């Protein structure tokens, strides 16, 4: 019994979701491995990992916003706009340092996030409306960008292509690219931020009970603003990774990415009601969604037409699992070991007597 209790302390139903995601990912992998010829090839591995890295990084930023019980629908446009903007700058100034180009992307993303955040936290406009608006505005800005409507890889400095295809190290015949390593580093940083920084814990607090946060004296406005700025900055970084990964861009770059990103977060257990979910869940969610999508595209049994529908279905299933199974399990968990106890009965009686006197 005691052991069970200890086990319960370290293992909670929420983790069951992460565990089952890992199992599901493995199953998807094995299933398609048996269906698609050459599935385990380095080429597919590279494709999937690079794509996952970008989606997962954006999902990471989105998660920060979701935790506060807000949405950011403009992330796809931010990724597209920053990628395009930095691509144009690099075309114009090919001598720019790679690090500077990256900082430029992050800076541009932060500014866009700042606009979202100010409107939401100080303008008191619901985030879904604000970011629906800025999603369109940021995309329009990209289309209206002066000059021709393309970024072409041949006009970009050589290090971009180099960075995109370079092998940092390899596991067997599978090479690991900088984009993937960059994504992983981000996850490690933000796993730390959300579990060990005061700011991170306050994200959870605000999403968990906004009213209590207000009455309890948490600086809610500032924290929500910061979440949006970080989300923008991270989307900016993802824009840079996007440029590195693809090189050739048109005005539809990263169009519709917000759907995939939110799907990844939700499938990974981040609650759209805020306050719930782990950063690593978003990574697993992104991995699962991308793996499934890439595999379905190559699986000739199902028409590509259905891939998006399947993604949508997956989101719904994830939400249902969340609201039905996980919540019920958590209740069970809590009920069993909750036990606020008991002041000593004798003492109560004694006190009562002394006060009655």
């Amino acid at each position, binding site marked *: 019994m005691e052991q069970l209790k200890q086990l319960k*302390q370290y293992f909670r139903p929420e983790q069951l979701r992460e565990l089952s995601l890992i199992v599901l990912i493995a199953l998807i992998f094995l299933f398609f491995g048996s269906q698609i010829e050459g599935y385990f090839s380095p080429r597919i591995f590279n494709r999937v990992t690079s794509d996952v890295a970008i989606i997962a990084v954006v999902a990471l930023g989105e998660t920060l916003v979701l935790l506060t019980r807000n949405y950011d629908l403009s992330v796809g446009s931010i990724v597209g706009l920053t990628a395009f903007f930095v691509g144009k700058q690099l075309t114009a100034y090919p001598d720019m340092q790679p690090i500077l180009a990256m900082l430029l992307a992050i800076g541009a993303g932060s500014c866009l996030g700042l606009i979202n955040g100010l409107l939401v936290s100080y303008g008191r406009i619901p985030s879904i409306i604000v970011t629906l608006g800025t999603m369109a505005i940021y995309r329009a800005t990209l289309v209206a960008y002066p000059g021709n409507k393309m970024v072409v890889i041949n006009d970009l400095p050589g290090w971009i292509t180099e960075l995109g295809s370079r092998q940092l190290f390899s596991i067997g015949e599978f090479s690991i690219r900088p984009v993937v390593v960059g994504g992983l580093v981000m996850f490690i940083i933000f796993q730390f931020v959300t*579990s*060990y*920084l*005061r*700011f*991170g*814990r*306050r994200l*959870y*607090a605000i*999403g*968990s*009970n906004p*009213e*209590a*946060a*207000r*009455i*309890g*004296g*948490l*600086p809610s406005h500032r924290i929500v603003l910061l979440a949006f700025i970080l989300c923008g900055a991270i989307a900016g970084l993802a824009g840079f990774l996007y440029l590195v990964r693809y090189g050739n861009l048109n005005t539809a770059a990263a169009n519709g990415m917000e759907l995939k990103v939110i799907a990844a977060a939700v499938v990974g257990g981040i609650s759209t009601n805020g*306050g*719930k979910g782990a950063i690593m869940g978003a990574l697993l969610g992104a991995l699962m969604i991308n793996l499934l999508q890439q595999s379905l595209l190559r699986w000739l049994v199902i028409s590509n037409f259905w891939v998006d529908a399947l993604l949508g279905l997956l989101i719904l299933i994830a939400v249902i699992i969340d609201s039905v199974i996980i919540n019920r399990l*958590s*209740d069970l*968990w*809590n*009920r069993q*070991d*909750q*036990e*606020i*106890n*008991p*002041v*000593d009965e004798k*003492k*109560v009686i004694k*006190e*009562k007597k002394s*006060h*009655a006197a």
Partner: protein
Amino acid sequence: MTTSVEAKAPVLQMRHVSKRFDTTQALDDVSLDLYPGEIHALMGENGAGKSTLIKIMTGVYHSDSGEILLDGKPIRVANSVDAQAYGIGAIYQEPMVYPDLNVAENIFISHRSQGVIVNWRKMYQDAEKILAKLDVKLDVRLPARGLTLAAQQTIEIAKAISLNVRVLIMDEPTASLSAHEAEQLFNLARSLRDQGVSILYISHRMEEVFEIADRVTIFRDGKRISTLPRMEVTRDSAIRDMVGRKIEDFFAKSAGQRGEQLMSVRGFNKDNVFSDINFEVYRGEVLGFAGLVGSRRTDVGLALFGVEPADSGEIILDGKAEKIRSPEQALRLGIAYMTEDRRQIGLTMPMSITSNISLPMLRQYLSRFGLIQTREEEATANHYRERLSIRTPSIQHPVAMLSGGNQQKVMLSKWLNTRPQILILDEPTRGIDVGAKAEVHHIINELAAQGLGIILISSDMPEILAMSDRILVMREGRQMGVFTREEATQETILTAAMGQNSGATKAV
């Protein structure tokens, strides 16, 4: 402990604090001293100004005039952050916890002194220390979601202690606790008091106040009436101080002829909400429902109208026992319910007077092709505009533009238009001015004279006394008695509402 608290210097003083909302003077030149190491009970009827006072102390509201002194020095409490910094904390009936955070985090999340990086191990240890000091065993790693209300309240108290509160406001903290849990809470309160914390304890439960308070302050109509050591307060003196509102400006109900029985409710019960409610409603009669906050009068109204159906008990209408499961069914049976919350659920603010009135009966206004016949709709609206004298430039005016009193009349029209036999009115005059109030009373009178059975739920004691033929008093979901017009006085009603059955007769 009751002796000589006043020998020490007060920790917090309210000096000549006043606060006005539109037409009501919520606080009128109130002064109150809180001393370290005392449990100071604050009592008063609904609307006496208790909540306003604590909201000013915690920075939710700002007073119009007057000042707050801490250790003799004036302070400005602009918001909850300030209150926290000054050591003023509050716990409420519904604990304000973060369900997704664990116990320890809930205690420490709003601490400024905690560094930027969370030291989990230290936080758990500190949380355990505080809980140990409170003599409470609670796993600090459990998330707050799913903990009992008592446990959640313990978290709030632990949080207050960790913030070194000097003044702790407890607003009806035992309202949703079991007797055993409440006893634990009292022990916590006493041990805090013994450590020098000043506790402002707000409660409607007389026996509780007598059990733990050192001093008792009574508010009435936004004024402080008395502050006395507990030993000098008796139940009767407390009740006397709480009532005594002047009855004026009231259009007393004319004693009409009581007609046949319209409805009989037997053993009405909803688990954990109310139980064993029995009463009858007669044609031409106003049955008042009195009680304090948390007495569950509104829940009985909602159950009768089928919004939140009761679990058991029967409603006999026209000699037939009915189970009301939905508002549609209630309307068919001739019951209408006018909510107390006209802004949120009573009216559709941006829509016109006409559309609001016809809404529940829209089917009657449909033509053969399913289109709304606006001319008939307007005829109805005009009819009520005249009958209830709704003052408006036109019946197409959005209700949001009307005064509170006129909005109330629109809501009344809407439900009268359903042709009810029984009309339940929940706080029909709350937040409207004196003139409109008198008009509403006049309308109620007329409706009763026309043969409707009216259930009047009201927190306004003079109103209920003046308007009702009989008064049913509830307390915490239980029926405390039914009083006839002759038996009912402010004292008898309040005594019953606070938990004493004396003088109550059985249902008439």
